[in-house]
């Protein structure tokens, strides 16, 4: 065997690639679920992930009040405390992302389906009044007060507009998603405590080597990420395949109109779909902070693009495809970096995508959330 970098470090690259790929896969699930049900690229899903990382940050540093450093070292926890804390942080992150995804759907997408409700009208009215008030005064508190006062009449007007039930063309959903994505990440960048700086999350888990495989140390955090992602994905697959709501998701994915006629509450199913995607992104966010200990207002953007690439690579709308695409992308990036150098990493990822789509125009496993049993 030739003495190349990739061959010497193959297993190490594999482990780290799989870990990052697992996170891609979890985020890709959100794209895939929404695409499968609504045929919509939920461009703002990346920011749902970002919100999840901030949820994890709040959970550990505020709710559990764990400092970044204790006596100059990481605030390690062990045993049951560690497990309970990690589960708690994950639940909070999932809660943040899940709520974020549902709110996003009600505000930025549902009105475009000609189905806007009071909640969306109120939020949109508040936002309208808020940005109009910014033209006159730029002091967060005053802006909020003005916006709150104006919310009622504006939301009344918006509700009347929603009653017309106008449906928007497909491109409009994408632009709305882009707008929402920009707004969410900028809002965090403008109003969070340290603004656009990088945030550190407390490190609870000591990153010891768990076991050695093929001469490569497998660290415990990587193991948790890979196993955790697989578990979450199994849970999701079971939910979609075995539960009543899951059956609804598959039905709507196959044919929304027919499902509606057959008595499926399509709006509820769409909310469930977004919530599921959000929860997966929240889990991914917590695993992400577990490995990298950091987040930032714009952390979602690149990760979102990569995860979306992963979803398309595997076949968008296909749950197994998201897993395959995510893991594959993580590996390809790592191997590619070892061969061509780190600066070509993204180029390699996109070229692989291009080549795959050339030969399999609907991704490796094809689209199938509705068509077959996933």
């Amino acid at each position, binding site marked *: 065997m030739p003495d190349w970098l990739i061959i010497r470090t193959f297993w190490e690259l594999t482990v780290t690639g799989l870990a990052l790929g697992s996170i891609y896969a979890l985020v890709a699930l959100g794209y895939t679920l929404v*695409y499968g049900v609504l*045929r919509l*690229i939920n461009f703002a899903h990346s920011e749902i992930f970002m919100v999840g990382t901030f949820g994890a940050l709040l959970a550990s540093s505020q709710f559990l009040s764990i400092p970044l450093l204790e006596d100059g070292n990481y605030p390690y926890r062990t045993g049951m405390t560690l497990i309970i804390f990690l589960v708690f942080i994950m639940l909070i992150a999932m809660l943040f992302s899940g709520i974020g995804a549902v709110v996003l759907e009600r505000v*930025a997408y549902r*009105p*475009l389906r000609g189905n*806007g409700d009071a909640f969306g009208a109120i939020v*949109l*009215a508040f*936002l*309208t009044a*808020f*940005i109009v008030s*910014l033209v006159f005064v*730029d002091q967060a508190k005053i802006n909020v007060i003005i916006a709150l006062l*104006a919310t009622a009449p504006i939301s*009344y*007007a*918006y509700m*009347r*507009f929603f009653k017309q039930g*106008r449906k*928007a*063309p*497909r*491109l*409009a*959903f*994408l*632009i*709305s998603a*882009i*707008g*929402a*994505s*920009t*707004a*969410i990440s*900028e*809002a965090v960048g*403008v109003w969070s405590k340290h603004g656009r700086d990088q945030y550190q999350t407390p490190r609870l888990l000591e990153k010891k080597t768990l076991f050695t495989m093929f001469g490569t140390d497998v660290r415990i955090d990587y193991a948790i990420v890979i196993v955790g992602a697989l578990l979450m994905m199994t849970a999701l697959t079971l939910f979609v395949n075995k539960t009543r709501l899951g059956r609804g998701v598959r039905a709507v994915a196959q044919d929304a109109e027919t499902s509606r006629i057959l008595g499926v509450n399509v709006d509820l199913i769409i909310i469930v779909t977004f919530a599921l995607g959000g929860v997966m992104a929240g889990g991914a966010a917590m695993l992400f902070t577990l490995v990298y200990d950091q987040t930032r207002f714009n952390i979602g*953007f690149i990760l979102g*693009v990569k995860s*979306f*690439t992963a979803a*398309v690579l595997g076949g*968008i709308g296909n749950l197994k495809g998201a897993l395959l695409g995510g893991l594959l992308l993580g590996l390809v990036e790592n191997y590619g970096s070892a061969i061509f150098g780190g*600066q*070509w990493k*993204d*180029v390699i*990822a*996109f*070229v692989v*995508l*291009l080549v795959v*789509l*050339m030969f399999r*125009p*609907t991704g490796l496993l094809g689209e199938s959330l509705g068509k077959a049993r996933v």
Partner: protein
Amino acid sequence: MSLVLNFWLRVTALFSGFGEQFRAMNKWQRYSAYGLGVVALYLLPYWPDVPVLGQIVNTPGSQFETVLNDQVVIFVLIALGLNVVVGIAGLLDLGYVGFYAVGAYVTAILTSAHGNLPWLLALPIAVVISMLFGLILGTPTLRLRGDYLAIVTLGFGEIIRLTAKNMDWLGASRGISNIKKPPSMFGLKFGVLDAKPYFYLGLTMVFIVIFILHRLEYSRVGRAWVAIREDEDAAELMGVNTFKFKLWAFTIGAGIGGLAGVHYAGKVGFINPDNFPLQLSILFLAAVVLGGSGNMYGAILGGILVAYMPERLRNFSDKRILVFGIVLVLMMVFRPEGILPKRVGNEHKKRRARSQEGEVAS
């Protein structure tokens, strides 16, 4: 609030009324109206000096005529080109910045880094090479469905940027400086300080592109585009070679994007890969859809708004991107077709009616 809505409806009615009036005018009235408008546009750099108007249009923190050229004209050119791809042919392109970058880089390579051509000669070469890139990217990818196309084009834009960033031959992250400027012509000197000549040049480019697109839109190609966008399968069945016409749209759009790049490179004289981030593609797309995709004048309006408003709103500089995001959502909720929506059906009926009138008269 209903007051605001009412006002909004009136404003848009005024604009659509404009169109009606326009069509109702005879040839000479129409030409003189065009003429007046064109002259007024060429005088745009002087608007900030007009008493009341100046207060309204001037950009508080940056030089107005530089904004007009560097931001507004570039965005209008790009919106025009992207509108062909997205609005007219219905192809979702999230990597349009790639063509803009190709245009700028070819100019830079030919006039500074690896050549000594004059800017004027680099211009057609750069446009043709941008079109070639459109062809190369389009041929394999246009067979993909809409959403796949989005991610592939996005990847393409990134590949272009990263290649420029990683290759020393392309200046790597240092970029390329000392790009040649357009030659002096018609008494206009293209220097470093005065942005006005560049604006006049850019505006002229915009008019030429509008003219060409107008001719195209009402040609066989244009009709094929409309057919494809409305229903691709039906168009295919009716014997339209959809692939060929989609490729045309992609290539022409790429050429216009390249032209914008040439103009930018010639004006600033320095480019580096950071000038062409992925986010810019998204901004371009937002411009087209915000203004009204499929309607050339809508796209122009969108380009103007997206480029100009952030500079106008420098007072709350920190929050302008946030505001932009919220405005996008609100626009899509309440006016998803954009500010000036396309009127395909009407337009064609009216044209047919008018041409029949003409036949009767002659």
